[in-house]
């Protein structure tokens, strides 16, 4: 019993799920673990999805539930990966207008709830109603989380001084 779900249908959504998971966890390995858990659960619950309804919205709802469960589980102590002297060797787009490293750190400082709403709106460009359905809260709560997330990030990015970041030429 897998409803109308096929491997191809799911596969078409994997890049989006990975992008979202990467931004949620800011760790490639943890992100793929999350996506894998999400896909396994999607197969198991496939009969809940109705053909013709929005597969992306359904998958992101599944992802939300998996993520919330992960957060509830006690986490082992981990060493944060952010070091001020650490240089990311990946080329960064020069025209972004923001210091992306700072932005990533700012994102890490948001609450999980704020981060989730912000990312669904900014990365997935989901309508607010759909975000509310995915996260399972009223739309008013979505709006206030979105607002607080943006304000906190905006303050964070405007804050001076920042740890000095060396750019290697």
């Amino acid at each position, binding site marked *: 019993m*897998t409803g109308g779900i096929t*491997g191809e249908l799911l*596969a078409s959504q*994997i*890049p*989006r799920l*990975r*992008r*979202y998971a*990467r*931004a949620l966890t800011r760790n*490639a390995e943890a*992100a*793929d673990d999350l*996506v*894998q858990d999400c*896909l*396994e659960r999607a*197969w*198991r619950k496939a009969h809940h999805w109705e053909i013709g309804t929005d597969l992306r919205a359904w998958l992101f709802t599944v992802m939300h539930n998996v993520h919330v469960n992960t957060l509830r589980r006690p986490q082992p102590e981990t060493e944060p*990966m952010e070091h001020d002297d650490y*240089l*990311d*060797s*990946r080329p*960064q*787009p020069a025209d*972004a*207008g*923001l210091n*992306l490293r700072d*932005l*990533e750190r700012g*994102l890490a400082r948001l609450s999980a709830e704020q981060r989730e709403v*912000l*990312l669904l*709106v*900014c*990365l997935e*460009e989901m*309508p*607010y109603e759909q975000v509310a359905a995915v996260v399972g809260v009223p739309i*008013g709560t979505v*709006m*206030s989380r*979105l*607002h607080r997330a*943006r304000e906190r*990030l*905006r303050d964070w*990015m405007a804050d001076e001084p920042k740890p000095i970041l060396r750019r*290697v*030429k």
Partner: protein
Amino acid sequence: MKEPLSPELQDLHAYVDRQLPPHARQRVEAWLEANPAAKRRAEDYAALREGLRALYDPALAEPIPKRLRRRPRRWLRPLGALAASLFLLLAGTWIGMRVERDVRVPLAEVPLVAREAAMAYAVYTPEVRHPVEVPGDQEPHLVAWLTKRLGTPVHAPRLEQLGFLLVGGRLLSSDDGPGALLMYENAAGRRVVLYACRREEREHATAFRFAREEGVAVFYWLEGSLSYALAGEIDRAELLALAKSVYRQITM
């Protein structure tokens, strides 16, 4: 209790997120023109969104790891599962018998340099944040450092024409002493590694040889005082073209 967001701020967000119907959009645009502070805020919000896209959109183009493409086996129907187990049992038996026989084949068929390159490929290329010790934009430093540690000149061949850019390099410890690893990446995020280490006997150079180690394709050859191996999970012909280009540049 939490205050609901004011209608102006709700509109501001919806404007930034392009979620307003056309007439409301015009109204908010006019309001923003009259309110520089609100306009600045909207611009900042939009810049944050672009920043997030710049950070995470690259993940969309990354090759999808195998473990995510697999359909979990436990959801196969029972009959399918039974057939699968039977198949695995038979395959296991067959492989077991093969391995038993192959033990007598000398292990030297695939030389160390190819195996080390395949291993280095498997270990380092999935790294997103720390794939290399010295990034490619510090190439002179990288080359000087590896040359010093290997005790023989190391070059970083240019593979731009074949679509691969230098990500950077690192020093490895191999059974034959220090080894140099250079990593390259193409626009699709595919990576290959070029591995070089010193060899003891330097009497003969060899042609390219091909090996496959755990799904990783490797071309390897001997030249001067170094053994070379180029490894990647790409098409054999494409890997060969890269290997030839490396070879030409090194022997020039």
